[in-house]
């Protein structure tokens, strides 16, 4: 091996972060953390939300300055004051939320911030030629002239990688890179990463998806509460071991399920058609039933009508035809308020936008559904004593970690916000729960908590429709699995017969 990468830039043989400490007001985000990565390896940085992964990587990329500790690049201590410094040292970062300008072309996005060979004029033709060269070297299929917003998420990620390579990145920080990809895109992406590893790049892979860490990475460092729990070789390590290191207690086990005990049909959807936000047909004749005591999973690739379906059931979006019944009663066209009053609980996909009011306090968000009914209100006056009492009870019984009941909801972590929504929706003893992406973006602890609560509801006889893009989640919880593709139900598979492969084909629209 030479010391040069295929891109022509020098390798980073060894990068070390030693004793990194970072304090924010009231929080110790990193507490003497050690981390290192070598050429030709993928090193996973694993930890729950808030464990300090992002802080550590933001320090490495020059977005934050550490209060203590040092960074050594090939043995030399370096000071990284800004992303520009990081780029100069050959460090690139692929952010979880892509740092692309959607209205610009691929080549404009790559050229942005670079010195042009034509001084103040852009040199986009040159940039495009170099992009094509890099694309060939790294098998990254990308059209330099395409406008970014027209690209798929997978393609946009490739643009991000090219952007980093163009700037000479020898070390790439990948911040939860698979969170937004479909299973197929993840496979393609891993092929690219494997090649980069072989070519001598050093890769840091931030994730909390254990099977991906095991599939892709050589070593893994686990962080918890800002501290290094340990660094270990991935080979010979199990998912359970990693999960325990992450959470600090036995975790990562499949939830235990009681045998199915389904009863009468509680939610019935018949030939429903509906339009999406852009006025295009999003549901094309959807029919299914959910019975008391069962969880029905709705699997599918993002954007195939799941959100529209949830909104139609919740009364938030009109159906253009068809019928939705709740407990045998036709609720099509009723207002959300009426539908909820008839026993529907809704856990929306966009929890920050549709599930709560960010500026409202924890207590206010907990009573949001029934704020105008006893005991929370009488004759139009809020009963603060009852609100405090009940919300304190719910905060305790749902393990919500909040400084106080008066804390604005926006200050809580995603997991705690979801617990507040669960507390509000489950404590009403609903007939039917529609849960859309209930654990998206949550850490292991919070995910397990949500799963346990949903299973508890199932065992108590609630009918649950679980809409999720996470197949593992569907397979873990559902008794029966519907697969949606392009607004049609492609299959209705009992859990015992469901495999990831079979569901994957249905998700891709292949008729069974």
């Amino acid at each position, binding site marked *: 091996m030479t010391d040069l990468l295929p891109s022509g830039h020098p390798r980073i043989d060894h990068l070390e972060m030693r004793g990194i400490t970072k304090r924010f007001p009231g929080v110790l985000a990193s507490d003497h953390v050690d981390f290192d990565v070598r050429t030709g390896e993928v090193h996973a940085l694993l930890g729950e939300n808030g464990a300090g992964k992002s802080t550590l990587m933001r320090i490495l990329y020059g977005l934050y300055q550490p209060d203590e500790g040092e960074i050594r690049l090939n043995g030399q201590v370096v000071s990284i004051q800004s992303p520009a410094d990081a780029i100069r040292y050959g460090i690139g970062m692929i952010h979880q939320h892509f740092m692309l*300008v959607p*209205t*610009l072309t691929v080549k*404009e996005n790559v*050229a942005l*911030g670079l010195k*042009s060979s034509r001084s103040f004029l*852009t040199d986009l033709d040159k940039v495009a030629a170099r992009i094509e060269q890099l694309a060939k070297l790294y098998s990254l299929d990308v059209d330099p002239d395409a406008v970014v917003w027209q690209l798929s998420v997978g393609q946009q990620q490739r643009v991000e990688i090219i952007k980093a390579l163009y700037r000479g990145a020898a070390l790439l920080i990948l911040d939860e890179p698979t969170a937004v990809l479909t299973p197929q895109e993840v496979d393609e992406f891993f092929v690219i990463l494997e090649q980069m590893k072989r070519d001598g790049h050093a890769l840091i892979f931030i994730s909390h998806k254990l099977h991906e860490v095991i599939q892709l990475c050589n070593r893994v460092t686990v962080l918890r509460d800002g501290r290094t729990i340990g660094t270990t070789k991935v080979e010979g390590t199990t998912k359970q071991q990693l999960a325990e290191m992450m959470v600090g207690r036995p975790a990562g086990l499949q939830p235990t399920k009681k045998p199915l005990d389904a009863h009468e049909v509680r939610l019935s959807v018949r030939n429903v058609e509906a339009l999406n936000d852009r006025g295009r047909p999003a549901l094309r004749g959807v029919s299914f039933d959910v019975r008391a005591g069962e969880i029905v999973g709705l699997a599918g690739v993002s954007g195939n009508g799941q959100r529209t379906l949830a909104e139609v059931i919740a009364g938030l979006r009109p159906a253009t035809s068809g019928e939705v019944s709740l407990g045998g009663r036709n609720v099509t066209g009723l207002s959300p308020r009426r539908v909820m009053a008839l026993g529907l609980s809704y856990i929306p996909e966009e929890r920050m936008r549709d599930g709560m009011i960010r500026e409202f306090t924890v207590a206010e968000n907990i009573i949001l559904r029934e704020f105008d009914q006893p005991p929370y209100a009488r004759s139009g006056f809020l009963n603060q004593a009852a609100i405090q009492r009940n919300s304190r009870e719910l905060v305790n019984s749902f393990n919500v970690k909040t400084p106080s009941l008066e804390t604005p909801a926006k200050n809580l972590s995603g997991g705690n916000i979801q617990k507040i929504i669960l507390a509000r929706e489950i404590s009403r003893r609903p007939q039917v729960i529609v849960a859309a992406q209930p654990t998206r973006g949550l850490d292991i602890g919070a995910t397990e908590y949500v799963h346990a609560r949903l299973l508890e509801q199932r065992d108590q006889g609630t009918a649950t429709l679980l809409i999720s893009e996470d197949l593992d989640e569907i397979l873990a919880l559902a008794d029966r699995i519907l697969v949606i593709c392009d607004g049609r139900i492609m299959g209705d598979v009992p859990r015992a017969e469901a495999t990831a492969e079979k569901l994957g084909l249905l998700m891709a629209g292949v008729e069974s």
Partner: protein
Amino acid sequence: MISQLFTEAVLIGILTSGIRLATPYLFASIGEMFGQRSGVLNLGVEGMMLMGAFAAFYVTLTTGSPWLGLLASILVGTLMGLAMAVISVTFQAEQGISGIGVYLFGLGMSELLFKKMLGTVETVSGFRPLAIPVLSDIPIIGPILFQQSAMVYLAYLLVPVAWFVLYRTTFGLKIRAVGENPAAADSLGVSVKRTRYMTVTLGGALAGVAGASLSIALLNVFQQNLTSGIGFIAVALVYFGGWRPYGVLFGALLFSMVNALQLWIQALNIPIPFDASELLIMMPYVLTILVLMFSAGRVRKPSALGAIYERGT
């Protein structure tokens, strides 16, 4: 009668005035467009124009040189733009409100300076029509396009220049990126603040020139509230033009042509229903609102327009 409008002389007159009247709108709107493309909504254009108009007028009056007057308006506009940048970029004040503040400051300050330093409405000999050899002799087109003042030519020249800067230079690329996704630009080492400072200051300078085009080229007077809303229309024209230089040009021309038409209808004493000349004066504004209504959603505005950027949020 209405047929009076359809003589060659009157039509040429209307078109000539239309071309002329677009001048302040072009300067102000193109300047505003740069700010908005980088994400800053500057509602203070009107105030900057007033200050620029006063500075240009006063310097021209005292020195006799409209070029020095123009320079003065650029200086004053630059300072006003810089002030807006300090308020909205460094101190991150709500852009709409701080713009109104800057407007009110410009309105009051220019009036104060007018009273203290001039006292009465005077006229000045500003930029004169400058016939371009050969071209100005072309029948019809000649008098319409090529017998205007230097300020008018500059305004129209600004359009392709603005286009070139926006789409062919690294500075333009930075502007477009910062206005759409400042976090992305920042992650690549593009300074969001510096880019916005530059565009807002440039916008201020051009607003100053827009004011000068009124006080030392089109009207050759200064009085209180000389601009009477032109700066606000200029902001609307940026939306109207879809944040593109040629779109802004189209908007400015459409607006000014209708304005010229109504001025000529008044000048020719053509009878209007109900004798309401106010209805005529409203025409260009009504038209602007109508076009804005029907063009809404046709083009996307810069995603980060009006949003404060702070790293890591």
